[in-house]
């Protein structure tokens, strides 16, 4: 189909419907309201579909849990403080191996923070976020087109690995408008997962739970999750590289920050500086092997994030001392310009004596 001009939030909604999302449960919070409103307009009256504006983010995620139990594709969305409230439910989804798509159009924190774009939820998203030993797949789009593409992909990943998938965007991606092309038509028939609870008809009754009084039983559940996480690391890690072949300095950035960094790198290249970029698309699993491989070409890395330095820890872990990592970040919802990042890049470049 032809490209249409849409906000990122609306594009996620449209992509979700086209991915066969049957239920959406949400609660108002800026800067993701356009997504909830899109679902109210376009999903709520669709045949076989349901939309509920819940009484809280906690209720919304537990409705997601219920709909996922019943075997349908389901999504919720929120922004940072609301995502904190959802952590209880995300832990239960992970524990019970239930697929779901959770969108975080993150904003400045901590606390009530601000309503503008920030990347300060990286730790929360990539370390599980709630209680217990679990991970979620975390996808970090950097354009409206990618929001749409990764939303579609998120539902497929959630079903494939029976796991909650987080789309970690930010207020800027959610609210900006860009041309977007939807590559899939909404399915005629909505998919029903095989392990769903739909009444014990023609099969023995089914229990979905993790609670047990036997620690060894829960230990095995943890090992089983761990094995799946290892498989996801092997199969689903994804990233983009930009002008890294001859780079003396590599900028590592995700999401909207990578978009800003790209502008800065283009300016640097015009000035003859050999700067490239690595953009993780999956934040978990993190593209550690790619970082390690890039360290064969250069030892100099600059991590740029719109926070106080969170992804930098994954870069350092991946390098294991084999590279030198610098950091530039703006927390609180401040949005750096490409020229600001260009100044940081060129200063570092000359400081390190790179040619």
């Amino acid at each position, binding site marked *: 189909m032809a490209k249409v001009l849409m906000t990122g939030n609306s594009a996620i909604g449209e992509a979700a419907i086209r991915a066969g999302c*049957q*239920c959406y*449960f949400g609660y108002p919070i800026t800067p993701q309201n356009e997504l909830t409103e899109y679902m109210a307009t376009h999903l709520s009256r669709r045949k076989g579909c*349901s939309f*509920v504006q*819940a*009484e*809280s983010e*906690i*209720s*919304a995620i*537990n*409705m*997601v*849990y*219920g*709909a*996922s*139990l*019943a*075997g*349908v594709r*389901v999504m919720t969305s929120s922004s940072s403080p609301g995502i904190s409230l959802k952590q*209880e*439910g995300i832990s*239960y989804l992970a524990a*019970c191996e239930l697929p779901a798509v959770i969108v975080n159009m993150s904003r400045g924190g901590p606390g009530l923070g601000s309503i503008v774009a920030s990347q300060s939820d990286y730790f929360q998203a990539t370390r599980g976020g709630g209680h217990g030993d679990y991970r979620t797949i975390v996808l970090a789009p950097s354009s409206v087109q990618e929001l749409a593409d990764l939303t579609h992909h998120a539902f497929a990943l959630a079903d494939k690995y029976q796991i909650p998938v987080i789309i970690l965007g930010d207020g800027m991606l959610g609210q900006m408008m860009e041309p977007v092309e939807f590559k899939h038509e909404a399915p005629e028939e909505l998919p029903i997962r095989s392990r*769903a*609870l*739909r*009444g*014990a*008809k*023609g099969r023995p*009754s*089914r*229990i*979905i*739970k*993790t*609670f047990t009084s036997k620690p060894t039983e829960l230990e095995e559940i943890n090992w089983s999750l761990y094995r799946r996480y290892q498989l996801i690391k092997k199969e689903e890690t994804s990233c983009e590289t930009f002008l890294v072949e001859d780079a003396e300095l590599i900028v590592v950035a995700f999401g909207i920050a990578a978009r800003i960094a790209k502008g800065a790198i283009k300016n640097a290249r015009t000035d003859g500086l050999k700067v490239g970029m690595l953009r993780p698309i999956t934040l978990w699993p993190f593209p550690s092997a790619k970082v390690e491989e890039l360290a064969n070409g250069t030892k100099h890395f600059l991590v740029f994030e719109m926070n106080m330095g969170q992804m930098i820890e994954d870069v350092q872990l991946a390098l294991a001392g084999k590279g030198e990592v610098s950091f530039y970040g703006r927390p609180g919802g401040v949005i750096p310009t490409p020229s600001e990042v260009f100044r940081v890049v060129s200063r570092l470049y000359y400081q390190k004596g790179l040619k």
Partner: protein
Amino acid sequence: MKKVYTRPSSLKRNPFHYCPGCGHSIIHRVMTELIDEMNLQERIIGIPPPGCSVFAYYYFDVDMAESAHGRGAAVATGIKRAFPEAIVFTYQGDGDLAAIGTAETIHAANRGEKITAIFINNAVYGMTGGQMAPTTLLDQQTTTTPYGRDVKLEGYPIRMSEILALVEGAVYIERTAVNSPANIRRTKKAIRKALQTQIDDLGFSLVEILSPCPTNWKMSPLEAWQWIDKEMTKQFPLGVIKDTTGDKDAN
């Protein structure tokens, strides 16, 4: 010879883990009888809570899933919205439904969700060792009201069913008890009506059941049965609290 008593087919062959004199086993028995009688085993989905009845799935031979504490009404909403053909019930204690899950319960009722809540009121947090519940009576001693529940410090025992009766989407609410054969029969009748309300797609239904917890009340099972009559029913009177199922405009 005619067989007059048998295990319901939707009740599994597992011995109950509940304490002697506990109301849960009676309520499980009554509910599984109803699931058989109403032919619901193949379409019913149960949501037991954290707490003593977290193991309800060891006894109910129907589809079940665990819920986070207090979130039963939201989980049930999700299931019912995704799969409206199911008959969905939550099984919740007083702390679950009337403290941590108050918002979920009131708003599910207000939306008129076609779900049924089985609300077990035993005036304490049972599994955690007998702490004060929102329904603990005034002057009642618990591990967190060791001097008795003092209204100045701990407030009043909350009448959740009466609060829910004000909510328009709730169409059938009854309070019963399981402390005598007659009350057990009334409980069964009330749960039948609540499930039928859901089958008829009329709205939110709830049965509050006063249920003995001899272990945490530090009473014999018989004393616990008597305490329900003498003390609990004064604060929580038995009977139909709301029934608009006959109204044409009931949602």
